[in-house]
Structures are given as structure tokens and as C-alpha cells.
């Protein structure tokens, strides 16, 4: 969806995607069907992060989509990136997580806030999918309440010394991980609140340990890590932006990240709905396909309506961002609505599949589990409602 370029008389709505956006959807869909769909179930079952698949996703250009060509990015608009995430999520939540986190949380902060040297050093490898980068924000005692964080960084001569830990960090402990961005407390603001600063910590730095987390309910083929910082000493050059920028950087990163989580909800809902529709047409009970029964047909009709609404909301948010207009409220709305909408759709999809929907042989079983993260990660649904309620003046 793009708005007409002429604003002189009136703003015309145009719901058509550009030719390039259509092609991106088509190619990513083809890639997902051929490369991801056949292995998604097995990778989920064995809880395995696939280097091979991630490399392939890098080769077709799924990393660094919104980054300029100078840093080996694809120089596309944000909506193109969102469409790509949507199409991957339509087939598998775990791989979509690798892409969404890789771009929004890994590449994003370095691209938006890094120095030219930092960008030159890290982005080319991250944008070609040769390496991944994590974003360490959540701590064991600091989830929705960022004020509970305990990780600190203290300047000692020419070096910063980081101590603390992070939890639930995507892409941070696999063979491809090159490093992480970590947010730490560097002092106290005049208001009495903590001052946050972000640092770039490379894999292999002394005292830094990234441990993969297992036994997850969802996103089982995506890499999730716990990070430990034990007197980690890094040079002054590893600072992201300025001292005290951390909180602002985190907010900006999450605003963008919300769009990609929205895309995961939208794509996942689309995939589950298509599977349910197909099953309902094929499954015969009482002498006819079950899609002919209103009890099933109405569920599918509701899914179709909700997916359409979600797509329009999410694409509008991207459209605003692509025009450098305020999009933060719409991003929070998209994250909230797309995530919860997928919850309703996967619920219907499993119900329509009946007993088969409870079996791993059917993809909707995986979609049902993968959805739950979306209500929780990158700001819970409750936090989104707080954000939105503030934007509307409550």
C-alpha cells in the first residue's frame, strides 16, 4: 500500500503494492515453500538452529533489506522487508524469528546508531547472512519493567567493564553469532532514574559467555541465549552512540521491531488459515466437505476478515515509516493486533483440523505453539496497550 505522491489537492489511497514488492513476495514465497517448508517440522522437533538454512536466507538477500548498499544492504523500503518476514512466517515461525531478530534487533541498532567504522566492521557480514548479531535487553529480573535491570558498565581508564546477565536473546549463541549489543546501566540521571548505554560486545571477548536456551515451547528452530558478563572489558570504541543514549535507542529499536513481530503474526495467521481452509475443503464428514457447514465456514470467514484488517493496519504503519512520518502508535497497534489475531486464527485452525490438529504431522500444531511468543516477546500485549493508551491520551 502506498499513498499517491501528489499531496497537492487530496491524498488518494492506493492499496496496490509496487512491482518490486510483488516480486519480493513471490520470490520469498517460492523460497519458503521449497527450502523451509520441507524441513520446518523436523527442525522444530529436534530443536535445531540450521546454519545451512540461515546461510541460504542470507544468499537470497533476507538480511539487511533496509540497509543501504554501502554496507552490502538491499536498500529497500521497510514494507518490502515486512512482506518478506510475513512470507517466511507463513511457512515457519522459527525462521521468521531468525530473520526478524537478525534485521530489526541485530542489524537495526548498529545501522541506525553506530559509527561509520562500526558499520563498516560489522554490517557487511550481517547483511549477507554470513553472521548474526544479538540484542541484549531483557534480564532475569527485568522484563516489562526495564527499571529492574542490573547489568552495569563502569568506565575504568580507557575501557568499559560490564557485569551482569541477559536472558531470552535471539540469535546470540549460535555458530554464526558474531556478537551482541548489550544495554547496561552507566549511572544515574538527574531525575534519579538509571542512565542506560548500549555497547557492542564481540563473541569471544574475555568474560563474555552466551549459552543457548533449550526446552522452548515455540520458535524451537530459532536460537535463544542467556548472556553472562563477568568483568567483560571492552574498548571505548565499542560504545554504541553516546553515553546515556541507551534508553532512547532501545525505544527506537522496539518501535521498528514491533512491525516485524506484527509481520510474524500476520504471516503465521495467513499460513494457518490457508491450511485450515484446505483441510476444510478436503475433509468429508456427514457426506460433505466440512467447509460447507456454517460452524466451520463462519470460523474461516472470520479468519479472512481479521487477516485483511491486520494486513491493512500493518502495511499502513510501514507506509507511514517509509514516508518518515510518525508511525509509533500504529506500530504498537500492529504488534498487538497481528499477534492476538494470529492467536484467534490458529485456535480456529486447530479446531477445524479436529484430532489431526493436535498432531505434529500437521503444521497448524506448530503454528499454534509458535503464536504464543508474539503475545509476549518485544513488549507483551499488556505493554502494547499501555503504549497505545498513552498515545491516545489516557
Amino acid at each position, binding site marked *: 500500500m502506498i499513498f499517491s505522491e501528489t499531496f497537492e489537492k487530496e491524498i488518494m489511497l492506493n492499496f496496490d503494492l509496487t*512491482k518490486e514488492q510483488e*516480486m519480493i513476495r513471490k*520470490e520469498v514465497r*517460492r523460497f519458503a515453500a521449497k527450502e523451509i517448508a520441507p524441513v520446518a517440522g523436523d527442525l522444530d522437533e529436534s530443536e535445531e538452529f540450521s546454519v545451512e538454512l540461515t546461510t541460504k536466507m542470507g544468499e537470497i538477500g533476507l538480511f539487511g533489506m533496509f540497509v543501504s548498499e554501502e554496507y552490502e544492504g538491499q536498500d*529497500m523500503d521497510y514494507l518490502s522487508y515486512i512482506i518478506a518476514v510475513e512470507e517466511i512466517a507463513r511457512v515457519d515461525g522459527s525462521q521468521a524469528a531468525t530473520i526478524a531478530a537478525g534485521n530489526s534487533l541485530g542489524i537495526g541498532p548498529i545501522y541506525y546508531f553506530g559509527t561509520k567504522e562500526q558499520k563498516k566492521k560489522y554490517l557487511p557480514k550481517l547483511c549477507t547472512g554470513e553472521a548474526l548479531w544479538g540484542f541484549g535487553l531483557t534480564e532475569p529480573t527485568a522484563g516489562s519493567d526495564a527499571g529492574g535491570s542490573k547489568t552495569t558498565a563502569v568506565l575504568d581508564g580507557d575501557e568499559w567493564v560490564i557485569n551482569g546477565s541477559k536472558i531470552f536473546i535471539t540469535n546470540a549463541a549460535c555458530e554464526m553469532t558474531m556478537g551482541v549489543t548489550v544495554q547496561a546501566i552507566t549511572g544515574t540521571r538527574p531525575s534519579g532514574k538509571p542512565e542506560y548505554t548500549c555497547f557492542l560486545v564481540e563473541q569471544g571477548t574475555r568474560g563474555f559467555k552466551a549459552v543457548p536456551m533449550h526446552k522452548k515451547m515455540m520458535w524451537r528452530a530459532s536460537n535463544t541465549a542467556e548472556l553472562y558478563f563477568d568483568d567483560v572489558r571492552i574498548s571505548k570504541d565499542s560504545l554504541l552512540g553516546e553515553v546515556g543514549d541507551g534508553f532512547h535507542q532501545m525505544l527506537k529499536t522496539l518501535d521498528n521491531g514491533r512491525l516485524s513481530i506484527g509481520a510474524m503474526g500476520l504471516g503465521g495467521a495467513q499460513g494457518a488459515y490457508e491450511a485450515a481452509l484446505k483441510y476444510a475443503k478436503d475433509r468429508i464428514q456427514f457426506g460433505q466437505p466440512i467447509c460447507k457447514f456454517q460452524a466451520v465456514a463462519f470460523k474461516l470467514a472470520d479468519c479472512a476478515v481479521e487477516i485483511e484488517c491486520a494486513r491493512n493496519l500493518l502495511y499502513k504503519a510501514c507506509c507511514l515509516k517509509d514516508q518518515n512520518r510518525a508511525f509509533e502508535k500504529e506500530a504498537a497497534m500492529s504488534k498487538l493486533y497481528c499477534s492476538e489475531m494470529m492467536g484467534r486464527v490458529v485456535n480456529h485452525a486447530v479446531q477445524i483440523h479436529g484430532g489431526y490438529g493436535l498432531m505434529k504431522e500437521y503444521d497448524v500444531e506448530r503454528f499454534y505453539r509458535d503464536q504464543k511468543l508474539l503475545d509476549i516477546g518485544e513488549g507483551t500485549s499488556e505493554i502494547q496497550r499501555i503504549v497505545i493508551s498513552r498515545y491516545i491520551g489516557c
Partner: protein
Amino acid sequence: MEIIVLLKQVPSTESFIEIAEDEMSIKKDDIKFVINPYDEFAVEEAIRLKETHGGSVTILSAGTDKTVEAIRTALAMGADKGILINDPAIEGCDALGTARILAAVLKDTPFDLIIAGQRAVDDDNFQVGLAVAEFLSIPHISMVIKQEITDGKIRCQRTVEGGSVTLEARLPVLFTTQRGLNEPRYASLPGIMKAKKKPLDIKTLEDIGLDSEKAGKPMTKITAMKFPPERKEGKIIEGESAREKAAALVMALREEARVI
């Protein structure tokens, strides 16, 4: 090396095909279109040749406004430029007419090699590639699974019943593709952005010096289009033992199916 790929846009093999009310064509409104899979092998092979020998790859197609999508996809895969002959007269063209139009363009375009799909999966005519070669008076090698170019000569391998045969010809040559030739690449996302800036020439029949009345006029005409008859319900052979079932099966094959 200048390489031309003849490309046709066809309904996606995953599309649900319905016969139109005239019973001579298919409904085109709701179906998705893709590059003809055999032409996709041709695009891939052309790009690989360019990567080894240098030169450029030109995509040539006769079609409609919609065909632009297929050409853009080939450009996004790595081809360099596109030529689309877009004329209302093309809609009713038969294979020979299409070949005549493509050959007319190629008479004024320098090339060393032309690669085409062995057939388009919609009409299954197997004609356009070899007719183009005939019009241009150049050698044609069909259904190639492997090729190698050295010193202005091409050596092509193709399968024949129970084996393979290797053919050699001096360039320029037209060869058609067979499954197994290669595994076509995806149009990468950076490729899609680059394709935006690549030249795509859109011409009418008049632009290439043809009379649209004559050039598009079909010499064959489709008079009917039907789905294959629906398969009859299968029969399950009942019996107490394997021996009994086998006997019943033999009986059925002899008496009912009359095949033994």
C-alpha cells in the same frame, strides 16, 4: 557472447485451471502466471554461460502487458535486458506465428546463441524454438541436458531412449532445454532491485516491421478444449487369501478389463 533467451509466460502449474465459456480457451482472470519452467532452465543456463564467457543475456518474449512480470523476474535472476513484443494480434497467434514474430526481431539483433524451452507447459506445442531456428537458418539442437562451448563450437548432450547422444555444431545455434540441465536460481532480493534499472524494450508488430494483420494470423485454430474424462472409481479385490485375491485379479483383468 551474446545470448538470447526465448521466454513465455504461462499459467502457474499450481493454478486451478477452468475452461472458459467458449470451450476453446481457459479462464485467465484468477490464475497466477509464471515463467514457463523449461524457459527458466534456459534463463539459468544463459546466465551461467555469461558468468563463464562474459557477454550479455537478452530475454525475448511475445506477450501482453502481464508478460512484463515474467521478463522482470528473469532480469532479477541476472539477465541484462528484455524485449517484449506486445501487440493485440499476438493473443490469437499459433506456434508458427509466434516463431515468425520472434525471428523477425532476431533478424536485426546480433546473437551467438539462442536458448529456448523445449516446449511451453500450457500449449505443449514443442514448436516455437525449432521454427525460430528454421526461420533464421541456424542449427537447432533439442532437449539438451548438458552443453559446453569452446572455440565457437557448442557440444550438447541430449537423452535418447536408453542412452545419450552428443551433438556438435558451430555457433550461432539454437538449443532447447530438458529437465536436468540445471537448477534455476531464485531471483535474489538485491537482483529484484537491480532489475528495476535494466532496460526493457516494448515494441508492437509494426515497430519490428511486421503487418499485424498477416503476422498474427493463425494457420491452426483451436476448435475445442476439454478436460480428460474423469477417472472411474477403482475396484477393490476381495478374498480370503492372497491366492484367492490373485485369482480374482487375473479374472478381472481378463474378463472385465480385457488386458490379458
